[in-house]
């Protein structure tokens, strides 16, 4: 103790200092409060394989299971549609379904979802018509639904730019006195973008009711996390903004659902934003246009297949007698019905009106656009006469 004091006094009093002089901290300095409550746990939060499963609502567990199975089938069907040329591109969430499902199920109807381009499944679980969810990726229009009707923002292709939208919307809702929460989804690569930083900072300063869910699936296209960040975890980034960071096993659907539900509840009661990092893995390539074998090995993929979100939940529920063969069959059949309907509807050619090109640029068309619309009209008329 003595030596400590001695050392600290040595540090405080540089050689040659006036006797009795004690440097003081800068006038604005406030003593540090312990950031420990904001720090994520050392291990990702897990529920499966623990006694906490017994305490979980069995209805919720079965719902999560059924949605995971349906989500996996949705991913497979959408991927197949790219091979048939029905979708221009599809960024799969195979292996990440637990994050997508839990994100959607943690929200109330009045809440808002801000998805990235990879998060069509979350939108579908939230109730959006799968065909509408895939419109962007099919290429017939950028957003196939009315965002206000479903409280799902347009799928954002630029990375992390939808995060400040979530903050602004949640802030506006609170100003209006509505207890609405915004959930913003982003990938690990997106956390390097400036908009990620600005969104988290605004959210914390405004104590906006927002939950940020980072799906860390290991790669931003081909770039692994180690080349993306030097932080101990992405959840650690929360501390610098003054919000709690949570780390969760992204393939444990029950854990993800629990962490998200807690964060949503906290935001709703005025507790401010939370940053959640869900550790998961993208089993498929970035999109159908990507060759994942160039940047990762089979053994890595196989290890994650063994940690598959459906497998984990199925095993747990089966062992606990909460899921039998009938239950599994029912989930598989529901998924198959969804896929068949999706396939059939996506095989129909969308009916497009080229005049839509000019219909929604401005509330009122400018003279310039009216002239261009007339030009296209004339071209279309000439085409149909020919």
């Amino acid at each position: 103790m003595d030596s400590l004091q001695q050392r600290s006094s040595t540090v405080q009093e540089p050689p040659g200092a006036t006797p009795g002089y004690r440097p003081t901290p800068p006038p604005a300095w406030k003593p540090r409060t312990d950031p420990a409550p904001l720090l994520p746990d050392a291990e990702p939060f897990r529920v499966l394989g623990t006694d906490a499963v017994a305490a979980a609502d069995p209805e919720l567990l079965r719902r999560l299971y059924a949605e995971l199975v349906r989500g996996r089938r949705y991913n497979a069907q959408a991927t197949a549609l790219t091979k048939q040329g029905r979708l221009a591109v599809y960024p799969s969430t195979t292996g990440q379904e637990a994050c997508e499902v839990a994100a959607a199920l943690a929200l109330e109807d009045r809440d808002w979802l801000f998805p990235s381009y990879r998060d069509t499944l979350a939108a579908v679980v939230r109730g959006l018509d799968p065909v509408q969810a895939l419109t962007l990726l099919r290429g017939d229009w950028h957003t196939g639904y009315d965002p206000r009707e479903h409280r799902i923002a347009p799928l954002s292709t630029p990375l992390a730019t939808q995060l400040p939208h979530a903050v602004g919307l949640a802030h506006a809702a609170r100003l209006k006195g509505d207890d609405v929460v915004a959930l913003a989804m982003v990938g690990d690569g997106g956390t390097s973008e400036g908009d990620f930083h600005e969104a988290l900072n605004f959210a914390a300063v405004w104590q906006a009711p927002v939950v940020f869910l980072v799906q860390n699936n290991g790669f931003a296209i081909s770039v692994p996390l180690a080349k993306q960040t030097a932080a101990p975890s992405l959840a650690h980034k929360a501390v610098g903004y003054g919000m709690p960071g949570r780390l969760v096993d992204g393939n444990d659907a029950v854990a993800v659902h629990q962490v998200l539900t807690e964060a949503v509840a906290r935001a709703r009661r005025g507790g401010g934003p939370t940053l959640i990092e869900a550790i998961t893995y993208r089993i498929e390539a970035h999109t159908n246009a990507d060759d994942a074998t160039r940047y990762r090995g089979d053994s890595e993929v196989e290890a994650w297949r063994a940690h598959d979100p459906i497998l984990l939940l199925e095993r747990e529920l089966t062992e606990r007698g909460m899921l039998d063969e009938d239950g599994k069959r029912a989930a598989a059949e529901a998924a198959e019905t969804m896929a068949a309907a999706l396939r059939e509807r996506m095989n129909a050619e969308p009916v497009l009106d080229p005049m839509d090109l000019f219909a929604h640029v401005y509330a009122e068309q400018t003279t310039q656009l009216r002239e261009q619309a007339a030009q296209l009209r004339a071209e279309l008329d000439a085409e149909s006469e020919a």
Partner: protein
Amino acid sequence: MTTQVAAKPAKPAKPATMAQALQRAMRDAMAEDPTVHVMGEDVGTLGGVFRVTDGLAKEFGEDRCTDTPLAEAGILGTAVGMAMYGLRPVVEMQFDAFAYPAFEQLISHVSRMRNRTRGAMPMPMVIRVPYGGGIGGVEHHSDSSEAYYMATPGLHVVTPATVEDAYGLLRAAIASDDPVVFLEPKRLYWSKSDWSPEAPTQVEPIGKAVVRRRGTSATLITYGPSVPVCLEAAEAAQAEGWDLEVIDLRSLVPFDDETVSASVRRTGRAVVVHESTGFGGPGGEIAARVTERCFHHLEAPVLRVAGFDIPYPPPMLERHHLPGVDRVLDAVARLQWEVGS
């Protein structure tokens, strides 16, 4: 017995500045519509570095006039979310070049949200950008960035040159259901007029140019900070026998082809004047439009008087860069164009 009541002396109209007119436009809009929110760096307690938002936070509270963190992408990005929830944000980008970090939000989201959602989600917001030089600002404080905004479909681009228009156009911009980039010529912030903050007000429709000076020998097509320059040039040219018409565009998008073409068809000659760089600048677009519409009426090529194609110079050199009266008059002289000249 008749009582003689001394006539109350008419209150002399208090000259107001453009900054005051802009401030009143926001105050009136906020008072009429509770969904109007002003936000940006320093707009609250300080009242903006140009005092354009002075008093709004005090009058409407910090929830309606909000000092945000210093982050332009965040300011505009959160404004997008606010507009999604039914508010009408009026965003301040403190200086022209400070707006650049917000360009991704502007171009990838603000400008195209209506379009990408087939009209379901309009973006009723105003992005106020103090722009242009002539105030002795150091680097990054004097850019004329209008060409970037003009090149982005979905945005309206508006710039007032008079105190009256500053009020009228900002009211229209706030009322617009589409995003409006509202360029405020900062060297005109302290320009005064007989317009008084108590005077009756008028909302100007966006997209209409106005003839500031009637003339017959040539048309000067200009906007924002270059309008007073062109008016001065027109007065000076009178002595040389040139009767110049001066058009203040007020709105760059939408563009008022009708007013501009009608003028050039009458005068047969045109010069476009602006501070922004010439190459790839607004003048090229305007000259092309005029040529396409008025070719058979033109006595000379449409000329441009623009800033040089250089990064905005340091303040001690800016007078050499900014198009002034002499440079406009030189261009007018060149309009005595003959084939082969």
